């Protein structure tokens, strides 16, 4: 079972990113579950979402305490939340950042999702949309296939700019 924890701030689309990722994995023929940890959400507060992907049906409902992959959609969270907590040995971190971030151990990748969203003018209520471009980055990391990632995005969003943003992230992420 591959376990993913997504850190974001309320309103940034982390919950939707989890749903898109589970849907893409499902379209790959895998079993997948996505579950947000609901607290007293409000815009801007740190939030976590969980995604599990497996070849077998998934019976686990508890939170992910030892993720294989941590995704951070807003690196300012790293000042207040230990996003690496419980990360498995050899685990991976994906950061939304134009530059490498100090203090990120292990296999750490970064891609400028915010810049990609702004370039596509993917902005809602003043916030760049990060949950569709991140799917492209995850496809590049072989978490899901690119066709399934794009299909999942199209199933949930009519605006093709979301697909373009995912393709841009796929191109830009270095692996």
């Amino acid at each position: 079972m591959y376990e993913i924890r997504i850190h974001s701030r309320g309103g940034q689309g982390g919950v939707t990113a989890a749903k898109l990722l589970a849907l893409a994995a499902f379209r790959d023929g895998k079993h997948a579950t996505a579950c947000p940890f609901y607290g007293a959400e409000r815009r801007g507060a740190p939030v976590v979402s969980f995604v599990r992907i497996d070849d077998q049906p998934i019976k686990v409902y508890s939170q992910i305490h030892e993720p294989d992959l941590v995704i951070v959609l807003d690196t300012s969270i790293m000042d207040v939340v230990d996003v690496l907590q419980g990360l498995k040995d050899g685990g991976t971190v994906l950061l939304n950042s134009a530059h490498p971030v100090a203090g990120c151990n292990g296999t750490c990748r970064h891609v400028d999702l915010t810049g990609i969203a702004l370039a596509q003018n993917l902005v809602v209520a003043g916030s760049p949309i990060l949950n569709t471009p991140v799917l492209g980055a995850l496809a590049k990391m072989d978490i899901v296939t690119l066709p399934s990632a794009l299909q999942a995005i199209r199933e949930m969003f009519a605006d093709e700019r979301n697909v373009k943003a995912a393709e841009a992230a796929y191109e830009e992420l270095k692996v």
Partner: protein
Amino acid sequence: MLTIATGNKAVAAAVKAAKPGVVAAYPITPQTEIVEQIADYVTDGDLESRYIPVESEHSAMAACIGASAGGVRTFTATSSHGLLYMHEMVHWAAGARLPIVMANVNRALGPGWNTWAEHTDAFSQRDTGWLQVFVGTVQEAYDATLMAFKIAEDERVLLPVMVNLDGFALSHIMQSLETVEIGDFLPPFHLPHAIDTENPCGYGPMTGPADYFRFRWDIERSMRDARGVIADVEREFAERFGRTYGPTEDYRCEDADVVVVAVGTLGKEAEVAIDRLRDEGIKAGSMRLRWFRPFPDLDLSGRDVVVIDRDYSFGFGGVVAHSIRSKTGIEPYSVIAGLGGQEVTYNDIADFVRNRRPGEETWFGVSDHV
């Protein structure tokens, strides 16, 4: 059709397939997504139904009672404080023998204010005369909702059915969901005692001491008959759609020395614990209790039993633990865990089994108690 959906969306999809004539509901976290989705179905023309947005849960159940008595299939959904607020009408719906189906998204009761999973809300309606089923997956939320209409409307039952799913843990998780073409699985709604203006009758009039108990007995008789009806409907469902359900979901129980009994998502998580324990050589199994009313006969003889209660009856104990004790005579190890969404992992459940003390009660996470 195979897709991926939340528990809430699965319930709504089943309701769409069941085509109730009236849906009356009041939103409450974490149930709101169910009635929002149904409202969308009605607005978009995907469901021909009268959607009544009422001003309270008491009115929601009252509207369902009126519509059902008028001979129409009805549905509502609620949770926690909403369920408690409609409590008087919950009793009335069963007493009036109306086959209303209600989804209850299990949530803790305040104070302190808490929107996470707990079963005390449903168990507080234990003596209302409603059938109660608890589900453990998104698919089961869909399947159980469809079957609930057929079971409730069977003339041997004619009692309302509550379909329970864990708040957030199941209502908001996305899992795979296969929706079905129900065909004639659900026959047209027929209520033998529906209001008929051509044949005026009194409904719920004064019923004196010489007669009242007969109506109560009739509810119990139907509850007893419901066991067979549930088995028939679950068998037909399996034949038509290929998914099998029973009063419990048993996992690796055949040769088990110790059996974990739990309800809802904790009952699924327990299966992962069982696999871990088996790897250690501990012969453990799990029995997820699905039907709570009518309460099934359970075969647990000769085993240690660990009961996980995500509920509590103050001054007595865990509701499931004392149900097991009274039905089987077995003194279980009673673990109170998961209240108000308390995090309980499969590792914790495996520890409950390893450290079991039959006959005792433990509150998980309460350090001066454990």
